[in-house]
């Protein structure tokens, strides 16, 4: 038998009842002994959704995968955090600055930052994701080349900043100047894309907890991003994941960093308001 045969076996698995229900578990996530909020009451803006509570993707993984996130030493995503900590202190670009030149100690200056992004930038008059802000710092303040939006160094820097907010509740603003972007993100979330005609909601709102082939569908929360996936053994960005999801509907995808994905990130982040910032998480 060769890999064609494997494909056939995959097809057989599909031939079995496509969706079987498997509840998310009720385990408690602690990271280095600190308890995370992984289930939270429904934010007011999700009253018209089919959800009754919000929950972290951690509950949908098996015990082995869950355990890898519970101790920073066991979490391979922390390797990237160490890389980014070195990058934080490295001078790059024409201005002769590092991140630390302005922001000093990352533990203090970046505490709480992840929890509120994406957010409105008054000066630029736009909604900015954390990745956009990082690149803006690089190009405007450091005179350095921007990171590619969903690249390894970007994911690592996001992880370094994220980890400073770990355990804090996601608290993304959805009103005021970001309201239009948020509405646009919501529209994308509920729009069916691709030959399979799937919206984000088709899987992650209407069918979370069900199995799609052998995979346990989560609510698609992004409070754990960037996330180390066992599948590709590296940190993955939110937009990288969005792209993968849209591609799997067999659609032309939006690009990482595009206005569509920025809006979608704002909307999806707000669906997790109240869950702990978990990144870098470990998923399958």
């Amino acid at each position: 038998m060769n890999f064609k045969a494997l494909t056939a076996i995959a097809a057989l698995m599909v031939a079995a009842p496509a969706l079987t229900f498997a509840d998310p578990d009720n385990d408690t996530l602690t990271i280095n002994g600190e308890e995370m909020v992984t289930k939270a009451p429904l934010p007011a803006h999700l009253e018209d959704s089919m959800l009754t509570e919000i929950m972290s993707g951690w509950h949908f993984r098996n015990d082995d995968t869950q355990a890898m996130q519970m101790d920073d030493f066991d979490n391979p995503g922390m390797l990237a955090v160490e890389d980014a900590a070195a990058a934080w202190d490295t001078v790059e670009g024409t201005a002769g600055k590092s991140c630390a030149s302005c922001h000093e100690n990352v533990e203090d200056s970046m505490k709480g930052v992840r929890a509120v992004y994406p957010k409105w930038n008054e000066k630029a008059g736009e909604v900015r994701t954390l990745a956009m802000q990082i690149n803006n710092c690089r190009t405007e303040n450091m005179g350095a080349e921007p990171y590619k939006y969903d690249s390894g160094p970007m994911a690592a820097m996001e992880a370094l900043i994220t980890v400073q907010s770990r355990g804090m509740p996601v608290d993304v603003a959805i009103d005021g100047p970001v309201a239009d972007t948020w509405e646009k993100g919501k529209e994308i979330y509920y729009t069916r894309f691709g030959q399979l005609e799937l919206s984000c909601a088709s899987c992650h709102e209407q069918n979370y907890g069900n199995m799609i082939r052998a995979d346990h569908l989560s609510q698609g929360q992004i409070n754990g991003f960037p996330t180390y996936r066992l599948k590709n053994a590296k940190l993955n960005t939110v937009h990288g994941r969005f792209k993968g999801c849209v591609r799997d509907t067999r659609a032309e995808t939006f690009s990482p960093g595009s206005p569509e994905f920025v809006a979608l990130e704002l909307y999806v982040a707000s669906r997790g308001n109240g869950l702990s910032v978990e990144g870098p998480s470990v998923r399958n």
Partner: protein
Amino acid sequence: MDFTRRDTLALGAGAVALTVLPFRVNAAGEDAIAAFTGGAEVAEGGVNLDAPEIAENGNTVPIGVSAEGATAIMLLAMGNPTPGVATFNYGELAGSTMASTRIRLAGTQDVVAIAKMADGSFAKATKNVKVTIGGCGG
């Protein structure tokens, strides 16, 4: 062996049992065992092999082995293109004869741990690990 869509559907009707068989059988695994044991008899039991029944992703599967009184434990993935995974040789200051690591499995298959005991005998444990194919092309 090539499968058309039609063949695949036909297979689905009659050959569900196929899915529970190891997806590939590899004589190289038997050869590796023979090379490690020198052809000696291998007893069942006396080795603990801690592996998930179902791995969420074959790329990173947590595995633990231990065997009281072993001097070395060889770990094999019998269905991988090359079955060798690791051989743990315990030194004088080993606190116990255990080890855990994370391994790659190319598909559903048997994982085998063979312990070489201090008295020169061999023991083994086998565990079938199902490797799932992710929902989204994973």
